[in-house]
């Protein structure tokens, strides 16, 4: 049982040994009796079963629950591609890969019709998150303003709470925009890659000029009034994550969320993997030291994971990597409906149009094929990180293998490193320090996968 891929053992900062069970999502101090239980296959103990070996989910039941129903699907988040235009020309932009008609902007009528479509074709819960995307969404600021008015009305009409977010390149700010973003409580993700040197090596205008200086100035205009989250794309796996975090918080960001640039598995080298392992481990050590000094760093990946661990993964286990295709979709200027914001303009991930209808069968088929137990031909079933991970990002897998049901090597590696480091942090905290996670509101991350 010990060599079972469903368990890992690890040490905390004091050198105490712990075991984590991927079946139950629980972490325990590794006493002799546990060792004995895990080593002997035939040893029966109700308590240890409950804590260590009892599977949380019956995968057969799970698959049955994804059979066809007559019920409309739920919708709790939407990304609107309000324009395909962008004033930047970032080298790694995944949207440049597809044949984008870059003069496309969403108009008011499409937005209005999409709301009617949503009301007619989906069930609603008590809240919905609307994300403004692009291209650069602030190039269609007029529509953003009109959208919020319409969507607020939609919320009132249906008795649901509407929250807003925007992912922006941070280069277009004026007084009116500041006021609008602040007064409508719009969650702001600014794409910024780190120091000027790193950022300007990829995130440039069409002229080739870097965008860093403009962004820093704009951040100083926004940060007195609203919280800003830095959305970092890491190209160089060696990047020092601690310096990255400190630099971005120094220039005015309240929070840092990073992910590695979309690269197919075959292009990622062993030294890349080693670099991620090292830098992530240093970041975890930094996080832990800060907490010991009673400061809580706003490093999204750790905070989200620690809250999850603290509440016990039974309460928030992932059977899918994210809400895409389940209760979250993306709508583009033509009214086309896509699995998520990364699949814009990719026909085999288009599930309809707001004027033609939504293909529920495609959705159910997709969910059945992509539920946790089916990913990677079943390889997720025996993984200790499964309920934390939920499977690889569909887009990353499709990118690497033309098959969204597969997992990517990088995703599996990265998820495990994140969870390992989070377990290390969590088990190195005192009981009192763990109580912080009772005090923080868990953030709904359904529109952006972990990676």
């Amino acid at each position, binding site marked *: 049982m010990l060599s079972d891929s469903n368990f890992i053992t690890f040490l905390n900062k004091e050198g105490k040994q712990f075991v984590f069970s991927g079946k139950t999502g629980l972490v325990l101090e590794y006493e002799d009796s546990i060792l004995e239980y895990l080593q002997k296959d035939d040893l029966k103990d109700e308590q240890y079963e409950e804590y260590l070996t009892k599977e949380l989910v019956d995968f057969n039941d799970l698959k049955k629950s994804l059979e066809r129903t007559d019920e409309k699907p739920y919708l709790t988040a939407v990304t609107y591609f309000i324009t395909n235009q962008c004033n930047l020309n970032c080298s790694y932009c995944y949207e440049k890969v597809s044949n984008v008609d870059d003069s496309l902007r969403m108009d008011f009528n499409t937005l209005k019709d999409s709301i009617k479509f949503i009301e007619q074709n989906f069930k609603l819960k008590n809240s919905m998150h609307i994300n403004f995307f692009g291209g650069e969404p602030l190039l269609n600021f007029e529509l953003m303003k009109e959208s919020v008015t319409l969507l607020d009305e939609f919320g*009132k009409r249906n008795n649901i709470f509407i929250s807003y977010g925007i992912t922006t390149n941070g280069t277009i700010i004026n007084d009116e925009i500041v006021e609008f973003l602040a*007064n409508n409580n719009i969650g702001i993700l600014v794409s910024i890659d780190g120091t000027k040197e790193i950022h300007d090596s990829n995130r440039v205008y069409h002229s080739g000029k870097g965008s860093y200086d403009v962004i820093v100035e704009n951040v100083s205009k926004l940060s*007195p009034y609203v919280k800003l989250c830095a959305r970092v794309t890491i190209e160089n796996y060696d990047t020092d994550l601690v310096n990255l975090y400190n630099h971005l918080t120094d220039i005015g960001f309240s929070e840092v969320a990073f992910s590695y640039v979309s690269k197919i598995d075959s292009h990622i080298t062993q030294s890349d993997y080693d670099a991620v392992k090292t830098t992530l481990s240093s970041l975890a050590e930094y996080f832990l030291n800060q907490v010991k000094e*009673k400061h*809580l760093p706003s490093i999204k990946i750790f905070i989200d994971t620690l809250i999850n661990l603290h509440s016990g993964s039974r309460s928030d286990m992932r059977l899918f990597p994210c809400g895409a295709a389940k209760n979250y979709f993306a709508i583009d200027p033509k009214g086309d409906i896509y699995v998520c914001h990364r699949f814009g303009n990719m026909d085999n991930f288009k599930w309809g149009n707001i004027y033609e209808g939504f293909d529920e069968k495609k959705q159910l088929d997709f969910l059945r094929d992509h539920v946790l137990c089916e990913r990677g031909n079943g390889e997720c079933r025996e993984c200790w990180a499964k309920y934390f991970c939920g499977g690889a990002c569909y887009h990353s897998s499709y990118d690497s293998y033309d098959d969204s049901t597969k997992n990517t090597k990088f995703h599996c590696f990265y998820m495990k490193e994140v969870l390992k480091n989070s377990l290390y942090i969590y088990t190195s905290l005192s009981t*009192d320090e763990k109580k912080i996670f009772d*005090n*923080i509101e868990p953030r709904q991350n359904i529109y952006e996968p972990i990676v």
Partner: protein
Amino acid sequence: MSKSSVFVIMNITHKCNLSCGYCYYADEMNKKNGVMSIEVIENVFKSFKESSLDAIDFCFHGGEPLTVQPDFYEQVFELSDKFLSDKEVSYSIQTNGTIINEKVIELMKKYNIELGISLDGPEKVHNYFRKYKDGKGSFGEVIKNIDILKKNNVSFGILSVCNDKTLEFSKEYYPFFKSIAPIRSLDLIPPDCVESQTILSKGNLSKIFTDIFNQWFYDNSCTFDIRFLSETVKVLLGFQSELCTYQKNCIRSKSMVSIDINGDVSPCDNLTHIQLGNVKQNSADQFISKSLERKRYGMIEDKRINDCVFCEWFKQCNGGCTVNSKAGDNNYYCSDFKKIFSYVKNELIKNSILNFNGKFEGDVTNIPNPKLKKKIEDTLKMYEDCYLKL
């Protein structure tokens, strides 16, 4: 959706006939004179008329609001009727209780005004600070007026600022207020920290609180709520609180504004440096929901309580009242509140109201104080209704 309402403190005058030792307002009174003009008052009502609010609760404050004559108030209420007839409106007056006469009583009854009277406790406590300009204590006059109100069936609540003197008489405090019952409610308030004076030493708030709590909590013939105490129980049971000190970032909250004599709007009458707008230029929707200044100070307030997340009482306390926090320091009453929460939680567990894990399971039977019990029952029902609506 639930109705939208706001509590509006109307600073109608800076004038006052008393000279209380701890008055945080004394400075302002000497600098700015006068009464809120009818023009400003009309602007107040106009700005609320145009708003999307359903209900407005006006509280007249000062100085001493009853130094303004009842005739003036008649004008005010007539204007209010004219502009706010399609809104739910209520009025209250916070007074030092020394200027009660027939005309005032008539006014209270005619417009259904809730009266709040400042009374700090038994005579020795009240007269320690609350004196006339000639140094004479105001206790006698206040008690006399309370009798008159009772005889005229005008109900009133009590506002009571505590200080070190209160601690000397903390065991007489609750029996004293019982003796002047019926009172609608008792609002026990820790004093604001002002640079030049600390009238309540650190550690004494918790002592006062626990002394009063011990008597009030177990009184099964209790006839009035003591908000500070009952809201503390409420937050320990896991509910949100209406008490402003227990709010999470009161500056972001849109439930209260304070309007000064010249129409300037602030989130609270202790935070007049935060200017949300002016009733002459801005609509209520603007200064309540769309003020960038509110966002700016809201961010500063978030930063202030950043590290409070490490405290076991964070969910109940939410960082304490910002007025009592100086930059770089813990809130003045921080250690007092920790003691208060710890004490009350213990009492709740001792009486099997919270289970041994400190969790509330919805059972109110073991709550000794009937007023408190009813408050918790009503809160449970409200949460139930909300849940069902979703």
